[in-house]
């Protein structure tokens, strides 16, 4: 369960770049490549092991015209997917 106080970081074997308006993510251990859309790329770029989910939401709310409640739900679901995919872990 993701809380807004939680802090995440990419796992040690993960490499990624924002290319155009998407992110290319490489999980080195499994030689797996994942492509993320623009919003996913924004979230991933903000997972720096320092910002909490709440702070990330604050940044995203300045970038996208969306209400906080729906954004919070979307980000929580997305972080859950990244956790399941082995891309991120709690710091």
């Amino acid at each position, binding site marked *: 369960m993701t809380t807004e106080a939680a802090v995440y970081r990419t796992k040690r*074997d993960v490499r990624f770049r924002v290319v155009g308006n*998407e992110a290319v993510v*490489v999980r080195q251990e499994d030689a797996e490549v994942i*492509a993320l859309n623009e919003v996913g790329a924004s979230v991933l770029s903000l997972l720096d092991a320092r910002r909490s989910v709440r702070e990330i939401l604050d940044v995203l709310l300045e970038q996208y015209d969306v209400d906080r409640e729906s954004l919070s739900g979307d980000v929580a679901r997305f972080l859950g997917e990244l956790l399941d995919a082995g891309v991120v872990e709690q710091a």
Partner: protein
Amino acid sequence: MSYQDTVVGTWNGNILFSALVELTYRCNLDCFFCYNDLALRGRLMDTSDYERFFRDLASLSCLHLTLSGGEPLVHPRFFEIAAKGRDLGFVLRIKSNGHALRGQTLRRLKEEIDPFVVEVSLHGARAETHDRQTRVQGSFLRLLANFEEMLRIGLRFKINTTLTRWNEGEIEEMSALAERLGAPLVFDPDVTPRDNGDLSPLEIAVTPEGRRRLFSFGKPDDVMRQGSASLPAADSRKHCGAGSSGIAVDPFGNVYPCVQWRRPVGNLHERSIRDIWARNDELDEVRRLSEEVKRNLAGGGPGLYCPGTAEGLTGSPIPGLPLHPSSTAF
């Protein structure tokens, strides 16, 4: 969007996505067909030059960084330079002959650098063949021992083999060796001239019969050219990513469209890669030529056609001119 789509996007959009860096031309082996121009001179890139270059690459969205040579591990600052690549988040590949991948060097590579993969050169399935090409007695047995050590510590590696007339009879044996090691094996069917135009490496180019054996034995994915680090992009209007999404850099900071296409497009001592990439008539010409090659091959043509190698052999990257026999259709 798939990764293939991303690669096509980098080719079409001229997004610098991969860089191959030749750190040094020094080597602990002496391969007969080495393509490096050992007489090339200039001001060597130092650690701070590489740090600046890598930062610029990262800011341009470049994801893939390959450290090559010569033998990159004999560069006296290899670990410092590779660590900068790791810290800047590149997917790091090391192209090595494997001779030094043992003991403390191997452990440091795994623990300090943790590359995505180390690409190791195999020159034959038997000592007499491998050592004949490397011209270092004992290099085959040492490499086999090093492979075992790589397996023990969990270093990800793959095996690259340039097919020659000396090793073309050992395709099946090399494949069996790779299978036993659990490592992917990729054949490059083309020996290329040296970067200074010297054609002597072609003396051991694979025979037409050897090429037929390779392509009857291997899956298409097992066969690719040395410079083709990215996936083939069937939907691109370009033939390859040379100069469009990829570059190669020699130890003196000279920038080329690709490790095979040695047409200088700038020097990192004089201009940053950001500047070279943004404004460059030579790169624009390479990109245009890549489209022309693609159009010329649209009706069918030599598989694995490399415009860089073609230019080195004939003076033109455009298909249609007579190539060396090893580069013709199979």
